């Protein structure tokens, strides 16, 4: 891990409480870590350990109850709603478990979407970027396919292309392979490893205990605490794992 790389994310004692009726749920109880450019970090933990809550804060969808969060050098905690929306548009790429593509809409149009909310891009530039992103995820031949004409794996690739299209500082994925079979999950992992190799910063929340082997670093959460934060010295190749999978896997 090149520790001289630029700091993308710095969390300082992040806490997040939810008030439910009379009770206070402590979803995050003091999280601190730093993620540098080019890291592929997995976050694992049991259900209810606070993974999604943490990811929402990292993605500027939510703000912590206390603690400081710097994204690409900018303090997010004091930002208003609109400023956070702009920040998400420029610095974050989201990948969701259920893809969240627009229905009846072509792959290119889906990928263009983030740039529609950025007036710096012209229609032609938008199209150009979207096509490039789709080529990068291996869907160069599916540009005009509508979302309902694609398989789950293809839809998740479109979603990843959409997360790439604005050249974000970090790609955040919550259970991005949760809805996919093993083979397709590995295909997506191959793609993420390729993006990692190209220098992209990726944070991947997962239940699957195998996946950390393919990432460069793993953070484990439990009850809103970080219980372990390890660097992976021997990153496995998802491509060779995919090649070794039996053909009729499931």
């Amino acid at each position, binding site marked *: 891990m090149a520790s001289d790389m630029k700091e993308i994310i710095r969390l300082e004692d992040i806490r997040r409480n939810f008030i439910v009726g009379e009770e206070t749920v402590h979803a995050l109880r003091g999280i601190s870590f730093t993620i540098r450019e080019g890291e592929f970090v997995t976050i694992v933990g049991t259900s209810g350990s606070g993974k999604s809550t943490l990811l929402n804060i990292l993605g500027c*969808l939510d703000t912590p109850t206390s603690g400081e969060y710097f994204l690409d050098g900018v303090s997010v905690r004091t930002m208003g709603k609109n400023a956070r929306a702009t920040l998400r548009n420029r610095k974050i790429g989201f990948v969701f478990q259920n893809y969240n593509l627009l229905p009846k809409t072509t792959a290119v149009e889906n990928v263009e979407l983030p740039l*529609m909310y950025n007036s710096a891009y012209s229609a032609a530039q938008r199209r150009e970027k979207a096509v490039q992103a789709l080529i990068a995820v291996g869907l160069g031949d599916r540009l005009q396919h509508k979302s309902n004409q694609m398989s789950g794996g293809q839809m998740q690739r479109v979603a990843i292309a959409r997360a790439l299209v604005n050249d974000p500082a970090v790609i955040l994925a919550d259970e991005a392979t949760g809805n996919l079979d093993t083979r397709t999950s590995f295909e997506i992992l191959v793609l993420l490893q390729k993006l990692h190799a190209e220098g992209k910063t990726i944070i991947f929340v997962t239940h699957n205990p195998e996946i950390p082997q393919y990432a460069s670093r793993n953070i484990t959460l439990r009850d809103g605490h970080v219980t372990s934060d390890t660097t992976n010295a021997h990153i496995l190749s998802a491509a060779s794992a995919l090649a070794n999978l039996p053909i009729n896997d499931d």
Partner: protein
Amino acid sequence: MNFTNLFKIAVRALANNKLRGFLTMLGIIIGVASVITMLAIGQGSKRSIQREISEMGSNMIMIQPGGEMRGGVRQSAEDMQTLTLSDYEDIVNETRYVAATSPSVNSSGQIIYGANNAPTTVYGISPDYMQIRQYKVAEGDMFTERDILTAAKVCVIGQTVVDNLFPGGENPVGKVIRFQKLPFRVVGVLQSKGYNSMGMDQDDLILAPYTTVQKKILAITHLQGINCSALEEKYTDQAIEEISEILRRNHKLNPTDEDDFTIRSQQELSSMLTTTTDMMTVLLAAVAGISLVVGGIGIMNIMYVSVTERTREIGLRMSIGAKGRDILAQFLIESVLISVTGGLIGVVFGVGASLAVNAIAHFPIFIQPWSVLLSFVVCTATGIFFGWYPAKKAAQLDPIEAIRYE
């Protein structure tokens, strides 16, 4: 976020649900079309009444036997025998503000020429009547005072009578036609006036000397009415006063007695008719306006459904950088697009329906440019007004919850 992109996003969203968009539009289409049609009919009859009145002569004064009806039963004007020839002569001789005067008697019946016949009305009048009612002779001549003195069996006929009796296109002037077995020589043909605002044919009539109609058709000596015209419209009141004095004197009425005649001026009639048509216009437009409001509620309903249905889409848009106001604008543009497109189609249908009403029912219509403009403004306002709450609801969604919405 610029407007062009928001507009594109809204158009795309609508295109994804064309049928629903169209059904929502239907309410607006019907609303706008009916507003335009109703206003066209209302304004059309008002205009045509105003035109007719000025064509008829806005200084016309009509005298009928019998007092004002005050509840109860009144005898029909024809049965009252209070108006006499000497009343007529005194009005001619003793007034200063009256320009022209003509007695009026009439009879309806079948008119015959050769094998052709048709029902019509014969009006017994004097040549002054032409000036009072602004009739003109197109062919031949008007009959003369001499014909009146001799109760000559001559007549001037309207264009409809010409069409009914002389379908072959012969020249009617000089021909002899029969009304209730009585032969009349046609001396002239009137210039056509067309239909009036009540859909009545103003060319379906025969004018003959009043003496002839009195003696040879009706066998009466009294008059059924007297028509006059004031020197100028502004002298109408003075003329009415003079006439009233003469009639009260002739009829030997005490100062406490009520009039045994009724004088109506065109002025009075015109303001009455204008009020009536104005009221009709407002009523029709109100009914049509209600359907526009119903259409607007339809939009609101569909937009609410749409916001709920697209909660995840909204959550996604927010998570990739849409601000609340972008979402608000998107849904507002969608509802305004629906209402304005509906409005456009509605204008086309409304104009079409107005023209159809005019062509089929002979209703006069007038499509006022401002009514079209108004419909547009109202449509846009409807879209914004009824789209606002659903759009606001969408804009206020929490992206974290919205994106997990099932």
